C-alpha cells in the first residue's frame, strides 16, 4: 500500500542529488566512447568476441546468482526460522564471507585446488562472496513474515516443506529478487576472482584495455555494454519482484515467534551450515594463517597494521554514512511515493554497480580533475567514488525494510493531521531503522575491502588494509600480507555483528 501523494521536495531534492552522483560515470563513459566517433564505437562492439564475452559474463552471472539464491535462502532459513542453536553466531559467520575480498578468496582456492582454475573456480569463489547479498534481506524478511499464515497453512494439513515453498517464499519474494540483483551486479563488476581464475569475461577485457591496451576509449565502449546489461537486469528485477510487496493490514498476533521444529535431523542442517562457513570463510582464513607460519624474514610492522585499520574504518564509516544519508530519501521516495520519477531515480543508483572499480575510479578522476580540483586526491573525492559504487547496497536495504514495514501506522499519523515530512521523520524512519543499519553495515564492509577505487583516488601516502594487502601480494610477500588480511577478516566481525543484530530485531513488529 502506498500514500498517494507526490513526494515532498525535501525528499525529492536529496534523492535527485543521489541519482546525479550515481550517474557521474556516464559522463565520462560517453565522452570517452564518443572521442573516436560513432563508427569506431560500432566497430568495437560489432565483433564476434564481444558477443562471446557477453555470453560468458551472462553465464557466470546467471549461475552465480542462482547458486547464491539457493545458498542464501538456505542460510536465511537456518538463521531466521529453523530453530537450530547458535543462530546468531551462524548469522555472523555466514555474513563474514562478504568481507573477504574476491581476489584473496580466489588466491586461497587456487593454492588449495589449482585444478579449479576457470569457470568453476570463478563460480565457487563468487558464489561464496555473493550469497550474503541474498541471505541478509531474505533473513530479515522471513523474520517479518506473520507466523499466523504459516500456522493456518500447517493446520490445513500442508507439510512444513510445502508451507515453506508456498507460503513463506512468496512472502519474501521481493527480498529474494532484490538480493539477487545485487549479487548479479556484483558478479558483472568483479575482476579479482575472474582474473585469478583466468575466466575470460567482460571485466577482464576492460582491465586489459587499460592495463595492456592503454586504450581508455575502448574500455569505455565495453563498459557501456556492461551498463546496458546491468540496465536490463535492473529493469527485469522490477518484474521479478512482483507488483507490490505483501504487507499485512492488521497487527497480527503480538507474541513471540515459535521457531519451527526442524524436521530434518538438526545435525544435517548444522553440517551443511558448517560446510558453507568452511568453504566461504574457512578456506581463505586457513590460507592466510598458513602464510603467517611461513618463515618470515620481515618483522611485522604493527604500527602499519594499526594505521591501515584506522584508515580503512574511517573510509568505511564515512562511505556508509554518506551512502545511507543518500539512500534514505531515495528509498522512501521510491516506496512511499511511487511515480515514474522516483522509480527512475532509484533504478539509476543501481546501474553503475555493475562497472568494475577501475572504470568508476577513472570516471571520478575525469570529473574530479575538471570540476573538483580542491578535493582531487583528497578524502572527500575518494568517498564520492566509493559511494557511487556502494549506494545500491544501502538503497536496497532501506527499500526492503520499508516494504516490509506496515504502512498502517503512517496512515494513522497522516489521518491525525501530521504533515508528510513529520510523518517521515517520526514514523517512517524508525520503521526503516533496521534496514538503514543493515545497509550501512553492508556498505561499510564492501568499502573496507574495496581496492581499485581506493588505489587511484586515495590521498597520496594513505594506506588501507586493502592497499597494504595489494602492496605485498604483488611482490608475493605473503608473510607480510597475512597480518593485514587477518585484520580485515577479524575486524569485519564488527559491522557484521551490527548487521546481524539489526536483522534479528526486525522480528519485533510494530
Amino acid at each position, binding site marked *: 500500500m502506498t500514500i498517494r501523494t507526490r513526494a515532498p521536495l525535501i525528499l525529492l531534492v536529496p534523492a535527485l542529488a543521489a541519482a546525479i552522483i550515481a550517474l557521474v560515470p556516464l559522463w565520462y563513459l560517453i565522452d570517452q566512447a564518443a572521442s573516436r566517433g560513432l563508427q569506431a564505437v560500432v566497430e568495437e562492439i560489432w565483433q564476434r568476441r564481444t558477443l562471446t564475452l557477453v555470453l560468458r559474463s551472462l553465464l557466470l552471472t546467471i549461475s552465480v546468482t542462482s547458486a547464491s539464491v539457493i545458498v542464501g535462502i538456505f542460510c536465511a532459513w537456518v538463521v531466521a526460522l529453523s530453530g537450530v542453536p547458535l543462530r546468531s553466531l551462524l548469522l555472523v559467520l555466514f555474513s563474514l564471507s562478504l568481507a573477504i575480498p574476491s581476489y584473496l578468496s580466489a588466491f586461497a582456492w587456487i593454492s588449495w585446488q589449482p585444478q579449479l582454475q576457470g569457470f568453476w573456480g570463478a563460480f565457487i569463489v563468487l558464489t561464496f562472496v555473493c550469497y550474503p547479498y541474498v541471505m541478509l534481506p531474505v533473513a530479515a524478511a522471513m523474520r517479518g513474515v506473520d507466523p499466523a499464515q504459516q500456522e493456518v497453512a500447517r493446520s490445513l494439513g500442508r507439510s512444513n516443506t510445502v508451507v515453506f515453498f508456498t507460503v513463506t517464499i512468496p512472502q519474501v519474494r521481493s527480498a529474494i529478487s532484490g538480493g539477487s540483483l545485487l549479487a548479479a551486479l556484483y558478479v558483472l563488476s568483479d575482476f579479482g576472482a575472474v582474473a585469478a581464475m583466468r575466466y575470460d569475461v567482460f571485466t577482464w577485457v576492460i582491465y586489459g584495455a587499460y592495463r595492456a591496451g592503454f586504450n*581508455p576509449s575502448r574500455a569505455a565502449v565495453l563498459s557501456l555494454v556492461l551498463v546496458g546489461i546491468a540496465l536490463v537486469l535492473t529493469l527485469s528485477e522490477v518484474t521479478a519482484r512482483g507488483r507490490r510487496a505483501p504487507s499485512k493490514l492488521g497487527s497480527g498476533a503480538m507474541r513471540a515467534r515459535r521457531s519451527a521444529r526442524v524436521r530434518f535431523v538438526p545435525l544435517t542442517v548444522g553440517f551443511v551450515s558448517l560446510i558453507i562457513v568452511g568453504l566461504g570463510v574457512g578456506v581463505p582464513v586457513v590460507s592466510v594463517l598458513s602464510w603467517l607460519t611461513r618463515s618470515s624474514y620481515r618483522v611485522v610492522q604493527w604500527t602499519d597494521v594499526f594505521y591501515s585499520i584506522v584508515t580503512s574504518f574511517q573510509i568505511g564509516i564515512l562511505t556508509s554514512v554518506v551512502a545511507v544519508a543518500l539512500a534514505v530519501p531515495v528509498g522512501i521516495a521510491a516506496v512511499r511515493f511511487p511515480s515514474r520519477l522516483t522509480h527512475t531515480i532509484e533504478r539509476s543508483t543501481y546501474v553503475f554497480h555493475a562497472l568494475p572499480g577501475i572504470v568508476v575510479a577513472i570516471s571520478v578522476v575525469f570529473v574530479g580533475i575538471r570540476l573538483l580540483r580542491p578535493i*582531487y586526491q583528497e578524502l572527500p573525492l575518494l568517498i564520492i567514488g566509493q559511494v557511487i559504487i556502494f549506494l545500491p547496497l544501502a538503497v536496497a536495504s532501506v527499500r526492503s525494510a520499508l516494504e516490509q514495514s506496515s504502512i498502517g501506522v503512517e496512515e494513522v499519523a497522516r489521518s491525525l493531521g501530521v504533515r508528510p515530512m513529520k510523518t517521515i521523520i517520526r514514523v517512517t524512519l*524508525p520503521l526503516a*531503522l533496521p534496514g538503514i543499519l543493515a545497509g550501512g553495515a553492508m556498505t561499510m564492509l564492501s568499502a573496507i575491502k574495496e581496492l581499485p577505487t581506493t588505489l587511484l583516488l586515495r590521498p*597520496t601516502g594513505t594506506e588501507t588494509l586493502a592497499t597494504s594487502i595489494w602492496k605485498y601480494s604483488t*611482490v608475493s610477500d605473503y608473510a607480510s600480507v597475512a597480518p593485514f588480511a587477518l585484520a580485515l577478516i577479524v575486524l569485519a566481525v564488527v559491522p557484521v555483528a551490527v548487521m546481524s543484530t539489526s536483522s534479528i530485531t526486525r522480528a519485533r513488529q510494530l
Partner: protein
Amino acid sequence: MRNSKTMKLSRGLSTLAAAAIVLSACAGSSSPSTSDVSSSQSTVGDNTSEEIILTIYSGRNEKLIAPLLEKFTEQTGIQVAARYGDSGEMAALLLTEGGASPADVFFSQDAGALGAVQGAGLFDVLPSDVTELVTPAFRSADDMWVGTSGRVRVVIYNPSLVDTPPSGIDDLLDPKWSGKIGFAPTNASWQSFVTALRVVRGEYGAQVWLEGFAKNKPVAYEKNGVVRDAVNAGEVSLGLVNHYYLYEKIAAEGQAAVVARNHFFENGDVGGLVNVSGVGVLASTKNRDAALTFVKFLLSGDAQTYFATKTFEYPIVAGISPPDGLPSLQQLNPLSIDLSNLKSIEQTQQLLEKVGLLTR
C-alpha cells in the same frame, strides 16, 4: 513506542556520526610511512616556497622503491610524495588527468606504459646529459623516457630433472618437454616476450611457435614466483620467468634451500628478451629541475647499485657491475629490439587467447 523508536534512531545515527568524526581526527594526524608526504601538500604548485615536493607516480612496487626514495630525499633534500599503483593503471590515470596532472615524474615497471604516456604527448624531452648515460637500446628513440634497470627472460630449471637445459625457444617445442614447462600466462613480462616474438617473427611466425608451445602442454601458474617454486620443488622441470626470481628466493631462504638454477638464452634468442623499467618527466610539471634531479639520481651509481644488489636487476648504466654471479649484458648479447615496439600487448593477448594459452 514511536518515541522510543525515534530516540533509538537518533541515538544510533549520532553514535555513527561521532565515530566518524573521531576516526577522521585520528587518521588525519597519522602519517603511515615516513617517506611519503601524506597531508594536503601533495599537489604541485608549491614551487614558489623553498620546499619542493616532487610528486612521483610509481608503477613499481612500494616495497622495492620506498627505501630508494628515502635515499633520494636524504641526498638531495627534495621531499617526495609517491603514489603507487599498477603501471598500466597509472598510465590511464595520467592520460585522464592530461595537462592538469599533479604528477611530476612517471616511474614505470615497463616500457609499454611509458610508451602510452609518450604517445599522448604528456612527456617532455629529456636533456642529453641524462640520455647519454643510457645505451640507445634502453631508452625511447626520441628521448622522452629512459630505462633505469633491466630484467632478462630466462629458463629456470631443476638440475635433478634436467641435464642440458634448452638453448633457445625452439628447443622448448621438443616433445621431451611435454607437460614439463611452467609459465605464468597473465604475467606482463611473459606477454612482453610474446610481443617481441610477434615483432621478430611476424604474426604468423609467432602463432606457429605458440601453437607448438601449446601442443607441449605447458603448465600454467598464477605468477612467476609460483612457477619458480614449482620448478624448485620438481613439479615441473623448466619455467619461463625473469632472472631475478631465483635470487629473491635465495635471499629469502638461503642458498641451501634452493636447488633451481637459471639458464640464460644467448646470442639474440628472443627468449632472452631484456625488458626495462623506466622513467619520464611530465611536460606539465612545475618542478622540472627537481624532476630531472630525480631521473639523474635513478641513473647514479648509488641507485644502480641498489637495483643490482636489492632487487637483483641489471643496472643499465655502463660501469656498474651486474648482481653477483650473473653474466654481464655484453656477454649475453641480447636481442636488439626497439622497446617502444612492445606496447601492442593487447594484440598479444588476443593471439594468446586464440591459441588457447591465456584463459581457461
